[in-house]
């Protein structure tokens, strides 16, 4: 292997590729070749660094320089200045917003300081399309260790002792799940990876598959060894083309290296992995629905028991875990159960990946020890609320979770605490909302999602959620009555108690939690006000004549031409033509447009 003196790690995740990181890589390589440096400096396309807000990211190793928002045309300057002359390109460095100074070493960035990266250990470090890079970072060593040092029972014991719990939603102990599947005797068993990441706003599974696909393969092989399965299936969303492509490459490489197939690493273990595509159905994240979908059926859930461990795919014993859960397995085997269980809280061990999104400064992917508080996550790692606005709520757990408020900011995040606060861990999406977000609209938004995604099998979910959505729609349109609030409470609790599967039982959570934490806002809508000024039925945009300078910025952005006025004269808005999109308000530099 060639010895390079410098590596340029460029993020090749979906987010950064959307901002032309592929073109950037090409440009960097071209400039290196013209300067005859292509044997000295290597450009590596890696998985996600997590700092998606400022992508595309280029990290220079060995000096840890972290360049942000790099454009394809910056390639020449990076090579000429940094690689050739040894001077950092200061205009591309990350600037700490609090201290207002450039940070030249990523270790000193607030975003990374509180993180412990276990599931994301290789994302942003290795080229996911090269198995040798994974192996160089102890890849497949855990598989070797399990095969040579532990029996299947002992391996399951390590996972049990580590306290690892499922990262996909319910938090069921992983070791126990494996033990159940191992107890059922059958010569045909299945190991399934649930990569049907359906929570809007959660993208950790996609990033792991894009950035470190081999860690999933390794864990699935270990699971096959533990439960006595020869077949693995990865059920992945068709909306993730890049992750699918990298998984295919990884599976082929693992086969070439004898890590998949017959007699793995010279042992008696034989195991292979196939990919199955999802087709856009949120309910398929539920394990019984997922199994039906893999069988070529409609993805409708069935009542448990029997659990998949007893009768799953094709009626055979099946173990289903999600991506992030599998990603933690190899490290646990290598470093030991005690190491893993020393991180986290009493009942929730290890770390959890969260996808920070919404009105937060540092949108991205982070991994923190269980027990970190929401305040640390949102205000320290996440850098606080965008545009200096006030924090209002954070929604965790996706459409099954709830909205947490200011008073929950200091509780340590773990499975139990989140449920006790009326939300849940879910897959780890965290959507931050500010003072401008109307909580009734947010509840309606989630209900629309559930109504669309309900499989229709049981009446509470199919009919009940539809009725709740209609009530919320009336509330946001100014047709609400106070009885409607009671109806929401009643419907919500009945659906929770009677729906068939996890999706239905948790679907009223966004409504119930906002009813509890933002009751006043519901009352206000009945009284004809939207405190956040978001519901269009209750608002008007008006131009304050005194403040308006007649700069015409608003007239140029108004999509309906509703704003008129002479240059340098106060403008006016035609209320009949106004669609209340609010673009003019965001564009106005003089705060002359107000919501009434």
């Amino acid at each position, binding site marked *: 292997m060639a010895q390079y003196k410098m590596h340029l790690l460029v993020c090749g995740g*979906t987010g950064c590729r959307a901002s032309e990181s592929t073109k950037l890589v090409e440009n960097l390589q071209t400039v290196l070749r013209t300067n005859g440096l292509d044997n000295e400096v290597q450009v590596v396309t890696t998985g996600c660094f997590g700092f998606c807000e400022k992508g595309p990211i280029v990290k220079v190793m060995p000096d840890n320089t972290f360049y942000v928002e790099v454009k394809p045309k910056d390639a020449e300057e990076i090579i000429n200045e940094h690689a050739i002359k040894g001077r950092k390109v200061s205009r591309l460095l990350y600037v700490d917003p609090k201290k207002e100074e450039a940070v030249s070493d990523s270790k000193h960035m607030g975003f990374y300081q509180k993180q412990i990266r276990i599931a994301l250990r290789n994302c942003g470090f290795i080229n996911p399309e090269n198995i040798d890079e994974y192996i160089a970072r102890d890849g497949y060593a855990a598989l070797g260790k399990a095969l040579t040092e532990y029996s299947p029972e002992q391996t399951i014991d390590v996972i049990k002792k580590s306290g690892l719990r499922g990262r996909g939603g319910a938090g069921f102990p992983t070791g126990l799940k494996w033990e159940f599947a191992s107890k059922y005797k059958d010569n045909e068993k299945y190991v399934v990876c649930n990569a049907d990441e359906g*929570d809007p706003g959660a993208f950790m599974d996609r990033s792991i598959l894009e950035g470190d696909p081999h860690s999933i393969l390794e864990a699935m092989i270990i699971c096959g060894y533990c439960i006595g399965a020869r077949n693995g299936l990865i059920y992945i969303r068709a*909306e993730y083309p890049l992750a699918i492509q990298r998984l295919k490459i990884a599976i082929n490489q693992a086969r070439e290296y004898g890590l998949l197939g017959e007699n793995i690493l010279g042992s008696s273990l034989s195991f292979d992995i196939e990919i199955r595509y999802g087709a*856009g159905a949120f309910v398929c994240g539920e394990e019984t629905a997922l199994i039906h979908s893999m069988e070529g059926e409609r*993805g409708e859930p069935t009542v448990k028991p029997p659990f998949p461990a007893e009768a799953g795919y094709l009626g055979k014993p099946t173990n289903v875990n999600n991506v992030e859960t599998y990603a933690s397995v190899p490290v646990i085997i290598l470093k030991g159960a005690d190491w893993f269980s020393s991180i986290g809280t009493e009942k929730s061990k290890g770390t959890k990946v969260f996808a920070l*999104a919404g009105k937060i400064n540092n949108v991205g992917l982070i991994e923190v020890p269980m027990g970190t508080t929401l305040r640390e996550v949102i205000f320290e790692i996440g850098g606080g609320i965008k545009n200096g606005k006030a924090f209002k709520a954070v929604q965790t757990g996706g459409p099954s979770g709830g909205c947490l408020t200011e008073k929950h900011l200091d509780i340590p995040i773990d499975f139990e605490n989140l449920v006790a606060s009326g939300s849940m861990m879910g897959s780890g999406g965290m959507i931050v909302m500010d003072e401008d977000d109307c909580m009734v609209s947010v509840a309606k938004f989630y209900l629309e999602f559930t109504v669309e995604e309900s499989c229709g099998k049981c009446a509470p979910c199919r009919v009940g959620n539809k009725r709740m959505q209609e009530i919320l729609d009336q509330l946001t349109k100014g047709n609400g009555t106070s009885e409607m609030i009671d109806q929401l409470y009643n419907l919500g609790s009945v659906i929770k108690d009677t729906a068939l599967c996890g999706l239905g039982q948790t679907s009223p959570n966004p409504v119930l939690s906002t009813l509890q934490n933002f009751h006043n806002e519901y009352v206000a809508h009945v009284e004809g006000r939207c405190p956040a000024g978001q519901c269009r039925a209750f608002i008007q945009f008006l131009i304050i004549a005194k403040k308006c300078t007649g700069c015409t910025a608003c007239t140029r952005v108004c999509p309906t031409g509703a704003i008129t006025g002479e240059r340098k004269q106060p403008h006016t808005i035609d209320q009949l033509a106004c669609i209340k999109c609010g673009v003019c308000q*965001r564009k106005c530099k003089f705060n002359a447009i107000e919501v009434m």
Partner: protein
Amino acid sequence: MCALKEALSPVNIKTIKDICQSYNNNAGNLINILHRVQEEFGYLPIEVQEAVARELSISVAKIYGVVSFYTFFTMKPKGKYPISVCLGTACYVRGSEPILEELKKTLAINVGETTPDGFFSLDSLRCVGACGLAPVVIVGEKVYGRVEVHDIGKILSEYK
């Protein structure tokens, strides 16, 4: 991609046969098969579903049940440039709803429809995972990030 009108041509039937055969005509692989067939034809009209049913020896009703259950499968042809607006939560709180409204108005079609000239079709989807760029609009395979309502005209003009 080829456009379909009424009865399938022998070539089209052969394509469907080959795809089914590559999965050993195993009905358990129905979803993977439908993905491949949709890739080939652009959509899954009833004639195509009938052909798949014959190959796999299952009822058309079952295939229709699967096609109508999953949002990824479509029975209407998509436009030359399919447009998708992300309505994931991150995009929603950063204002994707007004963008969808603007697209509906500009193109004069609803979600799930195609313009009469077959140029654009409009869909909403839930999260492509590019939440750092929210709100996101996707045209064909190109992702537009941090889109504002007044950018829509400019984006569409790139394709006309």
